[in-house]
């Protein structure tokens, strides 16, 4: 549905987006990650046609954006960063205006506006002028504008920004539900959001695409991924360390700590070898050591995120 081919963007001599290509298919929710100022919003603005790209091309639902801008633009809904809306209009008036712009009229328009108001829980403020609304409501008003015409593509720049935890949860559920039959791009820097809603992740850093894969693949890149954590009672620390170190599948360094009278050990996984958890369990069982916890670590996204993007942040600081 969305195809970005070799996007470049220069502001003068400053390169903001550097050869970014990706695709989003129907049924996918693509998480667009990156540190602040990495070029996320710039890329999204090029996808939506607000910013012209310096080079490259964008295809929306088979229409090349520069050649058929109106056709391409009618296929997506867009929530810009900071959720702008005409402050002097009422919520309903604003949605009616955007509905008219989307070629809806009569009953279809009324139904679309009503449905968007219900979906985004704007019923209580629908007659209120937008400049009197709190940030959360304003944000949802702009979101309502994006989904109003039930577009096959959604481009959402930080959709949960400024929402309270309940609203955030609800927004994520909504995006997940809509993601089943739409192509959605969500930019965010909240990693739990990626876990919650995204079927695929791309990470952009300093304008470059540095990762493109599923959240599981991203997690697997973590150093912790595949490692095992156990909690054992009534065993001496040196004994446990000794046993663990003799397991061939265990990597280094093995970390053993005393927590509340029990021993908690974290054993990294040695690359290329599997079955670490089963082996550890077998060793513990053979000695009849009681354990009340044993699990394989799945790795953490924020570790990976930091590992992938930290290097560039350091060079960035040097440049400044």
């Amino acid at each position: 549905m969305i195809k970005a081919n070799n996007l470049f963007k220069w502001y003068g001599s400053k390169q903001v987006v550097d050869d970014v290509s990706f695709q989003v298919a129907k049924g996918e929710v693509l998480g667009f990650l990156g540190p602040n100022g990495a070029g996320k919003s710039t890329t999204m603005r090029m996808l939506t046609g607000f910013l012209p790209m310096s080079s490259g091309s964008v295809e929306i639902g088979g229409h090349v954006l520069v050649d058929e801008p109106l056709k391409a633009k009618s296929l997506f809904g867009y929530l810009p960063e900071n959720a702008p809306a005409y402050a002097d209009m009422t919520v309903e008036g604003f949605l009616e205006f955007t509905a008219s712009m989307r070629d809806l009229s009569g009953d279809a328009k009324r139904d679309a506006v009503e449905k968007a108001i219900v979906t985004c829980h704007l019923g209580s403020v629908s007659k209120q002028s937008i400049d009197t609304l709190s940030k959360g409501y304003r944000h949802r008003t702009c979101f309502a504008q994006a989904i109003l015409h039930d577009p096959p593509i959604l481009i959402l720049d930080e959709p949960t920004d400024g929402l309270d935890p309940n609203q955030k949860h609800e927004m994520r559920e909504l995006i997940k539900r809509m993601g089943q039959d739409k192509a959605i791009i969500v930019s965010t820097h909240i990693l739990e959001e990626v876990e919650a809603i995204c079927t695929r992740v791309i990470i952009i850093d300093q304008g470059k695409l540095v990762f493109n894969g599923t959240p599981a693949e991203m997690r697997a890149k973590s150093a912790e991924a595949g490692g095992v954590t156990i909690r054992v009672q009534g065993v001496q620390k040196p004994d446990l360390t000794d046993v663990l170190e003799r397991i061939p599948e265990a990597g280094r360094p093995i970390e053993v700590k005393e927590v509340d009278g029990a021993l908690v050990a974290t054993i990294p996984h040695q690359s290329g070898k599997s079955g670490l958890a089963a082996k550890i369990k077998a060793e513990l069982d053979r000695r009849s050591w009681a354990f009340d916890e044993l699990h394989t670590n799945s790795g953490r996204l924020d570790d990976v995120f930091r590992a992938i993007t930290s290097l560039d942040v350091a060079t960035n600081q040097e440049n400044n």
Partner: protein
Amino acid sequence: MKKTWFIVKRELASYFNSPIAYVFLIIFLLLSGFFTFMMGGFFRSDEASLIRFFVWHPWLYMLLVPAIGMRLWAEERRMGTLELLCTLPLSASQAIMGKFLAGWIFLGIALLLTLPMPMTVCYLGDPDMGPILTGYIGSFLMSGAYLAISGMTSACTRNQVISFITSVVVCLLLVLVGFPPVTNLLLKWGASSNLVDFAAHLSVMFHFESMQRGVLDLRDVVYFVSLIGFALFSTNIVLKQHRS
């Protein structure tokens, strides 16, 4: 066309949803009355015409029209709604035309509210209706030209103060370029009389004056319309440039 009309409707509603419309209308009517009666000596002149009324319009518009025009794009840019407008399925020219027409219609409403003026003249005397009609047409065209120019400067900045001052200066130039102090200066600089003539013809005054006298010359209409067209065209270019 339909989308342009939706933009017009939205814009007009936003004028009247805010105090801007009412403040503008009241000040416009007060000032035009003040200039006509106090400064222009309407009664002393003892003639049944609206010359004393129209003659102030180039100056009045110079101050007031940029107040309407300065918002057109600067406000959209400041609020971030420009991004929304540019990503909706409508062309740039539809958006520019819609916003311009809304402002122009609003100025037309302001002008219509001065109708008691010709009614008074008709009541007091027996005026020639020709010059009054062409005066109104000229005044409306001139307000459109000023508005298009203000819109263009508004597209250049998100700062409304800068937008206002720039458009006042550009409009002032358009008024002054036909006046002797400027034309004499040009002559002194060794400009040929053809060039000076050309400069004088660029002046709003030159074209508006004949309309006040009751002459509806196609050339004057073409002048105002092409001024509007040029300013709207430039607005399109400025808006595009500003995003890249």
